[in-house]
Structures are given as C-alpha cells and as structure tokens.
C-alpha cells in the first residue's frame, strides 16, 4: 500500500511536471496560430542625411515588405535622393509573442506567490498553530530543541505519530513530513555543517 501510494504520488508529480512543459509548448503553438497584429514590427533607423536629421520609422508590416521603401513614409527626400537615403537606412523585422510573455509572467508570478504564501505559513503560522494545539508541554519539550525556531522542526514528532494511524490523509501528511525532514537535512548540510555547496 505504502509503495503503491508512493508510486502514485511520484507518478502524479511526474505527470504534473510534464503537463507544465507540455502546456508551455502548447501555448507557443497557440500563440503562433493567433498571432497578434501588434506582434510584428518593421523598424527602420535612418541616419542623418544632408539637411534631414536622423529618423526612426516603425510600422506593422509583413516580413517581405520590410524595407525602406515601404516603411519610410512620408519620404523626406525627393527624386534621385531616395535611393541614397534608403541605402543608409537599416530595417529590421522583429516579431514577438505577447501572449507568451503575458502567460509566462502570470505563471511565474502565481508560482512565486504560492511559494511565498506557503513559506509564510511554514515559518510563521504553523509554529503558532502547533503551539496552540499541543499546548504547553509540547512547548517546553520543543524549546530544548535547537531547531525549534526553524521551520519543520516538529517533523520528527509528526513522523512518529503518523505511523500509528493509517489512512489516505495521513499518507499525504507522512509524505509531506518526510519531505520536511529531507529539507531539514539539506539545510543542516549546507548551512550548518557546510559540507556541500559552500
């Protein structure tokens, strides 16, 4: 049962990760299909020429039309000078995907926000809750523990307790506590003992 559950959990996390990657891919395809009108530009930079000062032209135009003759409008010079003027202009066709940018920023900010909330919960709220729930005896007991003020300090206790009960919720809690223990171990080796990554 335990191994099955662990396998399911692992599979779930795998799936979610691959879903994330796939969704990003899909998104790219999607944005390609619905290319925004504003997402292409042809930018021509024309240096000073004779009495004209330097000018920048910016236009929504397809790639094949991206040249000085189509973009520079109105043409500041007349007749035979047009060719000379246009020879100096540098036109660059650029495209972007505004939907990708938007979605990426939103995904990023929401993940960051969730992580921050969870971090605040783990470091500030959970110790207070635990203190209130388990009362004074727990407090004294865990005060001996150096790691009390660290998040996850009570992981050991919960691990010990959750072995006795066995239902699905506790399995989840068990997995979470095991993760907490791992992180605590990592933190010890990185920040306290300085054996890795210093």
């Amino acid at each position, binding site marked *: 049962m335990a191994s099955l559950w662990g396998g399911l959990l*692992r599979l779930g*996390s*795998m799936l979610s*990760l*691959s879903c*994330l*990657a796939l969704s*990003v*891919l899909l998104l*790219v395809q999607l944005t*390609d299909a619905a290319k925004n009108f504003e997402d292409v*530009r042809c930018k021509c*930079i024309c*240096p*000073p020429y004779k009495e004209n*000062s*330097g*000018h*920048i*032209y*910016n236009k*929504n135009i397809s790639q094949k039309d991206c040249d000085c003759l189509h973009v520079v409008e109105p043409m500041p010079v007349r007749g035979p000078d047009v060719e000379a003027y246009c*020879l*100096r202009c*540098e036109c660059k066709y*650029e*495209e*972007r*995907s*505004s939907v*990708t*940018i*938007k979605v*990426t*920023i*939103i*995904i*990023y900010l929401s*993940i*960051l926000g969730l*992580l*921050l909330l969870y*971090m605040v919960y*783990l*470091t500030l709220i959970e110790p207070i809750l635990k203190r209130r729930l388990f009362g004074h005896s727990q407090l004294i007991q865990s005060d001996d523990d150096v790691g009390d003020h660290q*998040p996850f300090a009570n992981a050991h206790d919960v691990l010990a307790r959750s072995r006795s009960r066995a239902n699905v919720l506790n399995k989840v809690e068990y997995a979470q506590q095991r*993760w907490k223990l*791992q*992180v605590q171990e*990592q*933190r010890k*080796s*990185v*920040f*306290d003992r*300085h*054996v*890795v*990554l*210093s």
Partner: protein
Amino acid sequence: MESEQLFHRGYYRNSYNSITSASSDEELLDGAGVIMDFQTSEDDNLLDGDTAVGTHYTMTNGGSINSSTHLLDLLDEPIPGVGTYDDFHTIDWVREKCKDRERHRRINSKKKESAWEMTKSLYDAWSGWLVVTLTGLASGALAGLIDIAADWMTDLKEGICLSALWYNHEQCCWGSNETTFEERDKCPQWKTWAELIIGQAEGPGSYIMNYIMYIFWALSFAFLAVSLVKVFAPYACGSGIPEIKTILSGFIIRGYLGKWTLMIKTITLVLAVASGLSLGKEGPLVHVACCCGNIFSYLFPKYSTNEAKKREVLSAASAAGVSVAFGAPIGGVLFSLEEVSYYFPLKTLWRSFFAALVAAFVLRSINPFGNSRLVLFYVEYHTPWYLFELFPFILLGVFGGLWGAFFIRANIAWCRRRKSTKFGKYPVLEVIIVAAITAVIAFPNPYTRLNTSELIKELFTDCGPLESSSLCDYRNDMNASKIVDDIPDRPAGVGVYSAIWQLCLALIFKIIMTVFTFGIKVPSGLFIPSMAIGAIAGRIVGIAVEQLAYYHHDWFIFKEWCEVGADCITPGLYAMVGAAACLGGVTRMTVSLVVIVFELTGGLEYIVPLMAAVMTSKWVGDAFGREGIYEAHIRLNGYPFLDAKEEFTHTTLAADVMRPRRNDPPLAVLTQDNMTVDDIENMINETSYNGFPVIMSKESQRLVGFALRRDLTIAIESARKKQEGIVGSSRVCFAQHTPSLPAESPRPLKLRSILDMSPFTVTDHTPMEIVVDIFRKLGLRQCLVTHNGIVLGIITKKNILEHLEQLKQHVDPLAPPWHYNKKRYPPSYGPDGKPRPRFNNVQLNPIDEEREETEEEVHLLNSTTL
C-alpha cells in the same frame, strides 16, 4: 570456464542461476592456491568441494522439502533495495554497467517470446531517446520562462509598463512612434517609479526616488531569493556545476536533482538575476536542465534503476542546459564533453546532440528576446581582422588568465572563510549585504546599472551610425558618403572618453563584487559576470587600439591596413575576444568555449583570434594554478572527484596507499561460511565501513568476493522478516554450498546473491599510476589489494584522493616506501608481545579486534585536511 564465469558475473549478483552450474569456484580458487604453493589448514577444500557437489542442503531444524523449495523461490526474486546506494556515497560504475548489460540480455532473450515482450524491448531501446527528448523540451521551456521573467523583473527595478503590466521596457515601447534620434529611448507607456510616485520625470528629486526604488527592489528580490532557497531547497543555491561534475563522476547527493530543487532554482534564479547581483543564469541553467533529466529518467525503468545509465542522461541534459543558456547547441555538447562529463561514450554524444537540438528549438520557438535569437547578446560582424591585431588579442588573453587566477584564489579564500568561520552562519544577512552594496554602487554608473546581459550586448555591438549609446559618440564628419556597413575609424568624441572612465570604474566594481558574489546562497552563475569583465576590458583595449590606429596610421604596423578612411579596428570584436579570454581564465575550458563564443557571433573568421586569446589565457592561468574554478570548488568542498585531467607522476605502490596501514588494526573481513548473523551484525554496528571483503576462512585468507554494507544490512533485515528460522545464531553462508552443520543448529542464511564475485583486485606491487588509471577509467569505487591471492587490504576512491592530496602537499620526493628496504612484512605483535601466527604474510587476529579503514563515510572528506 573462468571467462565464462566472468561473462556471467551479473548472474551471480542478482540471481541464483549459478547454483545449478556444475563447477564451483572454490575449485577454481583452490586450483590457483595449489599453484601458488599455498599452505593452509584447509587443504582438503578440494575434497570438500567434490563431496559437496550434488549434496543438496536440507533443512535440519524441523524443515521439510517444501520449505526448502520455498527458500529457493524466495531467493530467486532479488531483495528490494539491494544494489542501491546511500546518500553521499560513490557508485560503482563497473557494477552498474554489468547490471545494465545483464538486464539488456534478459530483455533481448525474451524478445522473441511474444508480441508484448517485443514491444517492451522496443520501448526499452527507445527510452534513451525519449528521455533526452523530454529533457530537451523541458529545459528549453524552462529557459524561456527564466529569460522572459528575468527580463521583466530586471526592468521592474526601474519602472513599470502601465498599459500592460507584463511587458518589460523593450516590449513596452514596442510600437511607440518616437521618431527622432533624441527621443528614441523614451516612450510614454513606460513609467519610471519617480514618475509614478512623485510625478517628476527629470531632476534630482526623481533621481533620488529612482535610486531608492532601485535599492528597494534589489534588496527585496535578493531577500526573497535567499529565503526561498533556505526554506524549501537549500541545494538550489550556487552555480551547481561543481556538484554536477561530482555527481556525473559517480557520487550520490540525494535531492540535489529533485523536483523541489528544480522548482526553487528556477524561481529564485529569476529573482537573483533581477536583483542586480553580479551573477548570471547560465551555470544554474545547466543545473536546471540536469534536474529535468533526472526527473524524467524516473519515468523509464532502464534509467531509474541504474545509476550509471542515469548519468548518461545527465550528460545529455547538461549539454541541453548550455545549449539554451548560450544558444550554442554544439558548444553545449562540447561543454558536456570537456567540462562536466566523466563517462562519455559515443551514444551519449549523439543523445547530447539531440537534446541540445531539441532544447534550442523549443527556446527558439518561444523567442524570449524578440530578436529571433536564443541569447540577448547575439551579434553579427562582417569586418575582417588583421594580423597585427593578434597582439592585442593575446594581451587580452593574458588579462583573462590573470583575472582567472586572481578570481579563483580570492573566491576560494573567501569561500573557505565562509565555510570555516562563524561568518558562514548568516547566509541571509550575507546576501542582503552583498545585494545592498551592489545596488548602492551600481546605480550611479549607467554601465553597472544595466542588466549584465544587456551590458555585454552593448559592448559586443559595433558602433554603427544608428547606435545611440555614448560608447559610439565619435566625431563624425557629415559629408562622408559611404554606406552604413563600412564606417571608417573616427576620432573619439567626449562621450567615448567619459564612457571609458565609466567602464574602468565598472570593471573594478565587477571584479570586486564577483569575487564576493559567487558562492552566496542564491543561484549564481559565473559565466555572465566573467564575460562582462572581459568584454569591458576588451572594449577599452579595442577603443585604445582604434584611436592609436587613427592617430598613428603611418606606423609600420598600421601602414598596410589602416589608411585614413579605412575601417580596420572593430572594438566590439575586442570585447568578444576579451569575454572569451576571461571566461577561459576562470573555467579553463578551451574548445567548448571557443565554439560557444563563435556560435554567439556566427562568424567563422573570428575563430583564430578567439583560439589565440583562450589558449593564452589558459596558459597564463595554469601558470598560477592548474585548476579551474569548478575543480577548486570541488576540492574546497572535498567531494570525491577523481580528475581525469591530472597526471599521476609519483612512484608509490598500491601497498603504500592501501588500508589498513602498517600500524592500523587489520582489515575487517567476513568469512564465507562460518560467521553467524549476529557476528555480521556486530561487525556492521561496530564499524563504519561500507564494504567487507569475504574470504574463504580465517586460516586461508583467500579472497572470495566483496559484500557491501548496505546490501548486507538490507539482506539480513529482509531475511529476518521474510524467511522463517533465521535467528541470531544462524550461519551466514556466502559459499555456493552450505557446510554440513550440526543437526540442531538453525538453518543457514544464504547471501550469495549479494556477494560481488568479481571484485577488482590488484597486487600489492602494482604502481599507483596504474591503480589511479584503473579508478579513473573504470570508475571503480574500491579495489582489493592481494598478495598471492590473499587479501592484504583495500584501496578506495577516498584513499586515492587522500594520497593525491598528500603528494601534492609534499612536493619533495617522498621517503622511499618502507617496503623497499624490507622485502618482508614486519612481524606484528599480538597483545602478549609474541608474534602473531602468520599465514603467508597475512596477520591474523581475533575477529573482534578487526578494523578497516573508513571507506567514504557519510561525512565527506574532511576539508580541513585539504
């Protein structure tokens, strides 16, 4: 017969098929013993073996035939957990490769049986390509996310796009129609913080407001990054390349490539880059890609169960990481080959190639920078270079080498301080302080205020007539009638001189801050700051040479190429060469670096200048210290990494390195059939060694095999749970045939399946050169030292590393090894002062006193001895 047995060594480990084989290896061993004039009290072993053939073990304590078949059934299935490794342990490449070959044979032999088996074998054959495809997809997508988010957050320090909050400065002004050159950098949609807060766009008030907001954002990003790292995934800090190198060489760091590390590294990398610290995202991207590779390899049993195969995927993943970091797929493959990988067969090369391709393709289709390129600082030059320019290029190479040597020394000294003193106890405070200093100093200087990638882009870009930066403020003669691409060398204007001063300050600032930044507890790469330093220096040199050529075009070196009005010097090219030289000085890469940089520029003709600069910087750097920054960090942390690049030139022998040492208590060994479960458990509890040689008996001391501690523990535990009749006084039997036991003794525990029947052995007179070579090339974890077939001691990877370290510290030739003078081993004295009984040079003493040298404990090599 012997070759046959070697060929089937996998079978011995994992199954009991060998039970049915007709000849026992006791016979083989004994035959050898006879040739060696072996004097033992077990000379009748041959006879024993003969009589044992065909006598099947039957239960003696009330067992029946039924339970004995049950026993065999049980043993047929491998014990779960055997063959895995503990955290912070080294894998045995040879064992893993054998395991894989055996698995492959099994699948191949079943292939013909049914369509389902055929499908399974096809799936197995394709899983390698599938997993690198998935890795490439994921790392490309994540790199796109990081690029876009980091750009946006970097610009958030300055202001915000009011019309669309998710755009950065560049994207915000995408469609703006500011047509004149004077207004080209402005756009109404982009609001700086001063405009938003105090409503002023100009003036000292707005400057101070922007300054304050810049510092505020930098500090909050840095704080968020370090606290996320600290709370969720401490392994996400640093660049990750030293650890990945170590992992690829066969070390286990559990959780280092896990899901949480991946997520936190991705998220905090953006924050760290955006906070304006002097760090880059390229190294961490390699780590991110490796995390993807590791996570996806869990989907395929071929890779999830085999540590050696998993490392092939990780090699490919690191190629994909560099491919997306620099937009250089081939450079990525070469980077994986030259810098990170330890074991790189051709198959992995192709897979790395494919992974790099897929990742680059995905990133290109995301198009994070809007320039249809994979990196921000992609440049294109068309101007040629001239022969005399090699001299400044080589000068840049010297600068790069000096910078690399200085950086490695200073950074390692600082990191050692962090590691060993109390100052390392305050990681959050350290990050905050570094971020604050960086932000305060960086803001006034426009070149340091910029995002480092943008700075590199600006330095790389050559001055056309269209450039607006002050670096291109040359005095123009308006009547020039040439076309755009070919601008002659011009005298520098005021803007260029002031830009040079600012660049000099930026150079000093970057050099100092990078030393203190690399190694703080946020994800931090080294490539970008190193490249920035090189690019600044290169640009300064480039402008200097350009002006020299302009004012002294009649000098004989310039005469031929630089007439008045000719465009002979490209300062942007100097910046690029300088960047490559500095990066080469720090990392000591050569081929992959040149390829990466030339993929950045797409100009094949610049390979020679790049090669000259990179090679010079490597020579200069090597003159001050042979190791690159990654090797130095590996050594600082004491990871068990056996560098394949170093040569071993000493004349020591295996006997000098092996444990136990002369004064140590002898080796802890197991005997093949007369120890009880309790004996073994006691030995496991009393010692901390990771493996025990198994010998025939106390008297003969001949080697049978090698049993790993973890396997022993797991096997005994599972036997106690699953098999009935296993008690503390049960005999443990590693031999093929159980010895005849007294009738009332408990039934024996057969552990032959966990015994490594073919441990690597060398004789005690093998030169260490050869031993080190064997360890490097085969990726051994331990090697037994024998003398006349008798186990004398053991050499582990850690022993070799310690030995190398020792030799490095005593550069003077060692005193001649003790066995040069004494051909015989000195007699050892027992507790009563009399020489112990000896059999063929092996000291024997009661088992309870036996000790063995620690073999890669959970604690890594103690760094203080390094």
